[in-house]
């Protein structure tokens, strides 16, 4: 019991950060599934959502600012696709990727310009940011609700993809982009929908992430974005359950490194991040398409 309450914080942090990675990873994996594009701007959409919350909450009550932030984030995700990716639909895949990197830098520098380079303190959200005690370990409520909320959202998403018409269109588009167009699927609205869902989840993810780690900087999206991308590849890019499982594994593993650190004489906390990436290499070595990946692969 004593051992548990000592080490529970590691596990809690791992599960909650894993859930937040999962929400971002789904955005990567869905866009890749349909467009075969790695949307490098996704981590920055996540950052922009956090930054907007800082400014929105300063001028309006929470019950207004939360929905507003989510809606505006979705709009930004939609706009990014329309402005930066859609005109390049027929261009080589490399051009779209460069465009994605461009959007990423644009958003970061915009944030730098607006914030003046200073870290912004994320607001305290009632209930979510409150302190709770779980089995003797003190933490924020967000840590506890994140995994549940993540799983619920993923189940809803899978239902949407399996049961609805737009979901069917998405599956068709990811199977064969050209043929689905010939079959009368409005490919542009399918792609827009993908970006809307991805941005929505990124906005929710940012709400949970920044409630825990309350400082927003222009480059704050880079590391979670990278980890989420690793999680998506880990689980097999294109697969939604894969992204979920991959994200939880990465989140928990990097905190387990810290737990193990207590029992070894050498300081291994240095390798907290390296561990996630090393794990990825090992998995890809044995299963090149990731845990749940499809057989066929494309070069980017």
């Amino acid at each position, binding site marked *: 019991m004593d051992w548990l309450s*000592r*080490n529970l*914080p*590691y596990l809690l*942090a791992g599960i909650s*950060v894993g859930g937040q990675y999962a929400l971002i990873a789904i955005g990567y994996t869905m866009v890749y599934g349909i467009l075969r594009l790695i949307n490098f701007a996704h981590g920055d959409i996540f950052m922009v959502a956090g930054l907007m919350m800082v400014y929105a909450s300063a001028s309006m009550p929470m019950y207004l600012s939360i929905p507003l932030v989510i809606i505006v984030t979705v709009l930004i995700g939609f706009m990014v696709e329309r402005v930066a990716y859609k005109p390049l639909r027929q261009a080589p895949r490399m051009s779209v990727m460069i465009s994605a990197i461009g959007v990423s830098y644009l958003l970061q520098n915009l944030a*730098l310009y607006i914030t*003046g*380079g*200073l*870290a912004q*303190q994320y607001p305290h959200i009632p209930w979510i940011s409150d*302190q709770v005690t779980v089995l003797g*370990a*003190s*933490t*924020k409520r967000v840590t506890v609700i994140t995994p549940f909320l993540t799983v619920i959202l993923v189940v809803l998403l899978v239902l949407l993809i399996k049961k609805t018409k737009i979901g069917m269109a998405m599956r068709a588009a990811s199977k064969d982009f050209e043929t689905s167009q010939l079959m009368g699927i409005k490919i542009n609205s399918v792609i827009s929908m993908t970006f809307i869902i991805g941005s929505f989840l990124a906005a929710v993810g940012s709400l949970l*992430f920044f409630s*825990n*780690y*309350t*400082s927003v*900087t*222009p*480059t*704050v999206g*880079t*590391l*979670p974005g990278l980890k989420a991308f690793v999680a998506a590849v880990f689980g097999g890019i294109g697969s939604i359950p894969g992204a979920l499982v991959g994200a939880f594994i990465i989140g928990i593993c990097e*905190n387990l490194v*810290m*737990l193990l*650190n*207590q029992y070894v004489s050498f*300081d291994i*906390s*240095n390798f*907290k*991040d390296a561990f996630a990436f090393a794990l990825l290499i090992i998995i890809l070595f044995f299963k090149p398409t990731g845990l749940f990946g499809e057989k066929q692969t494309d070069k980017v």
Partner: protein
Amino acid sequence: MKKKMFSVIVSAAMAVSMVCALPAMADTVKIGVYEPASGDNGAGGKQETLGMQYANSIRPTVEIGGVTYDVELDIVDNESNNDKAVSAASKLVTDGVSVVLGSYGSGVSIAGGQTFQDAGIPAIGVTCTNPQVTLAYPVYYRICFLDNFQGAVLANYAAENYENKVAYVLTKQGDDYSAGLGYYFTQAYEALGGEVVTGAFPEGNSDFTSYLTSAKNAGASVIFAPTSIEAAQLIIEQSAAQGIGLPLLAGDTWDSNMVLAAAEGKDVDILITTFYQEGGNAEFDEGVKAFINGDATNLANNGGNDMVAAVTAMGYDAYNVALAAMQAAGSTAPADILAALPGVVVEDAVSGKIQFDENGDAVRNSAFVKTANTETGTWDFVAETSISE
């Protein structure tokens, strides 16, 4: 053809205007401000720059060898980044500055040092506390105390005030300041019979909960975190949320109103060492507050209130040291100023008398210890300590 004609006219006009501008520029001396305005140390860099801008506003001219020069601050952003800092330093060299002030953050000072060394431009470090800065580059001088001193002060404080002699030292990977101060603290603390458990976090890390849990599980009685302000905000917040309950000890970087804002109303115990305590020089405090409140940009750069940061006082002193060096040199040529710097003594600096030793470091043997008052959101003075070696 027409296009060509046009460009010829434009370049001719530009050449003429440059020639016309020359006589006016002859009476201007440029001081390079090499500070971060963004990145990890953006907040601190801006406050340090504020001190120089304030000094410039009350002493806009300097008389050197019987000629009155206008002093112009040439401000560049080194982005708190060792790779980008070099190009910021090169820009100052290209602009032809006579002397450089800065930077906040030892890493970027070391990164830019070679550029200043090659150009032979003297640099006056304001709050870069890592010994390597002046050791590696003879053109670098500095007006603050060093990390081996600061680390020893903090280690002594920790050893005297916390019974169980185990400290958790949390540093950032690849950060010269953080690693350096962590090292000196460890050295001093172990010499005093303490035990140190270390943790290191990577660039861009947001999750400190596992580090804090490790500190608790290691049985530490104090956490020493020589980190940037950004990391400080996260560490404080998460320490309070996790109910860690260990005192947080830190160096001069934490002396910021951003840290106070993060700590306000939370159950945390923060202790830091610093260069200047607000109230040390009433005239300076009053003047700088008026300067900060008088301009919306200044107010934003100071974090939204008019609390006087120690680095602002240091920035102010650095400007005056630069002017004193120019007057002593009787010239605005970098080489002359460099030659005059070792002999410069500024008696009435707000952070205490400034003079340099043979390494180019300021002779300082006292530091202020402050604690964060989480109720009022201000720093409370604890002690002025010095260590005799």
